């Protein structure tokens, strides 16, 4: 008679044959990030409009000042970068008309500003806006992947879903308080469907997707180290004395709204860092969501908890954003050559002249 151990091992081998690790899975249908109003950020406007848009909300004077300062910094950097690039362009003997070149310059300036926001964001609104560059890259990759799949005999749509900030927003480290206050959403809703492919199709997809990424490798190989270096600056700032000095006030504010009471039981200790606070707030939304609360209840909860979040987060986020904004120009100047490379690559890959 086999021992229980041997019989279990044999049964496990049998199960592995029935459910092989690389077997076909049903599609994974991820839920919306949160559950209420739509329409706000889906139609994200241009880079400048995004910054200027903050002026409308009087309650946001600090972020407005911050945004305006950033706009000036970025505009300065863009002009400086263009002045360098422009000399090269004039030397190339380009005879395009004035209006064409003005339109191109505008587009290029927008793309350059997007590069800064994507790789060196100093504020939540910049971080959100910079996500659009990453989305543009994904759109181009999807188009190339679809073309390659068609050549391999498979059809996938080359139409990307509209830009959806919910897949990019970072409320723990770069919260966009203006957006959260105005939309009462931590992230805009948007379901994400992940298709399920047969094994052969998946293999073709992987090959095609890898090929589609190749043109962007240069951009990312310059952008990624720059981003890493900048995030080290961010982490230093967010862990610095002036920011940590706001933690007691964050605890006091959270206590006004029930901290340490938590839907998962009392929090084990005080809030030590901002992500602890974000997690505490998010728990009320997630807890209700996982208990199957109605959409109306979730909307009500979102309205309440986004207000709590913004009220309590404003001093500490304002403190680190001021420091990050102050640090950004120096960093941009220090890494001007990398930024010029990024601008050039982004323009080659994503400028309208490069569309197919």
């Amino acid at each position, binding site marked *: 008679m086999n021992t229980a151990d041997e019989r279990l091992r044999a049964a496990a081998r049998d199960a592995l044959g029935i459910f092989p690790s690389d077997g076909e*899975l049903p599609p994974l249908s991820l839920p919306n990030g949160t559950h209420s109003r739509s329409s706000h950020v889906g139609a994200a406007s241009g880079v400048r409009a995004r910054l200027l848009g903050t002026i409308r909300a009087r309650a946001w004077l600090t972020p407005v000042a911050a945004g305006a300062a950033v706009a000036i910094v970025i505009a300065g950097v863009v002009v400086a970068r263009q002045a360098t690039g422009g000399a090269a362009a004039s030397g190339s003997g380009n005879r395009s008309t004035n209006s064409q070149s003005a339109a191109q310059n505008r587009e290029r300036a927008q793309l350059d500003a997007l590069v800064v926001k994507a790789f060196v964001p100093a504020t939540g609104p910049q971080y959100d806006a910079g996500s659009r560059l990453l989305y543009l890259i994904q759109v181009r990759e999807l188009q190339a992947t679809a073309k390659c799949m068609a050549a391999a005999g498979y059809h996938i749509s080359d139409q990307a879903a509209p830009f959806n900030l919910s*897949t990019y927003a970072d409320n723990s480290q770069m919260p966009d308080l203006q957006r959260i206050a105005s939309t009462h959403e931590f992230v805009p809703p948007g379901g994400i469907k992940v298709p399920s492919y047969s094994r052969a199709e998946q293999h073709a997809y992987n090959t095609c997707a890898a090929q589609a990424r190749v043109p962007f490798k240069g951009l990312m190989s310059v952008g990624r180290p720059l981003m890493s270096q900048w995030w080290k600056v961010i982490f230093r700032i967010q862990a610095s004395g002036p920011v940590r000095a706001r933690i007691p006030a964050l605890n006091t504010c959270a206590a006004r709204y029930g901290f340490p009471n938590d839907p998962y039981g009392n929090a084990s200790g005080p809030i030590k860092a901002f992500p602890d606070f974000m997690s505490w707030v998010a728990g009320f939304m997630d807890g209700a969501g996982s208990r199957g609360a109605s959409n109306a209840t979730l909307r009500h909860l979102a309205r309440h908890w986004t207000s709590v979040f913004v009220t309590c987060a404003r001093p500490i986020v304002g403190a680190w954003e001021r420091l990050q904004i102050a640090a950004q120009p120096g960093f941009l100047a220090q890494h001007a050559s990398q930024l010029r490379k990024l601008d050039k690559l982004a323009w080659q890959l994503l400028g309208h002249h490069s569309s197919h």
Partner: protein
Amino acid sequence: MHHEEARLLHAAPASAGPAALPLTAADHVTALYRAHGMDLVRVAAVMLGSRASGEDAVHDAFCAVFRRWDRLADSGKALAYVRAAVLNQCRSELRRQARLERRADRHHRPLDAQSPEQAAILGEEHRDVLAALRRLPDRQREALILRYFLDMPDSEIAVAMGISHGTVKSTVSRATTALGKLLKEHS
């Protein structure tokens, strides 16, 4: 530090992820699903006695992890979190099944011991193992399934079940003995 690691993970090399881009929560969860989904379906199916229920439990667990991605203190531990979520889903489903069975008993309508779907979990020669596993207490069953069907080391079983390393060892030992007795009774 873990936030920095999470951020650097966002900036992982193209070869490490599905796209040469900062990875989003959906990217992370999807990659985890593709890499470990079937292993977890196997475990959940054995635990629940039905492939469909197993797939549902795994799907729900991944959705829960996606919803709570911001709450993960360390996204590098997402797999451990998903495993724990799958176990939770299975426990809930088993409790629901137990309630149904009690209700069926009261009305003298016993549920089928083994539906055609349940029979497809394992081959004929191993179904008695599955039946015996299902008769073990929850914790013992989970420990055995994680060890044998997911080939997990004790340290990872401890994390997934939320118990100590030592408790895993003693639970597995007691479970193996109990399973041996049940199989003997059956034969």
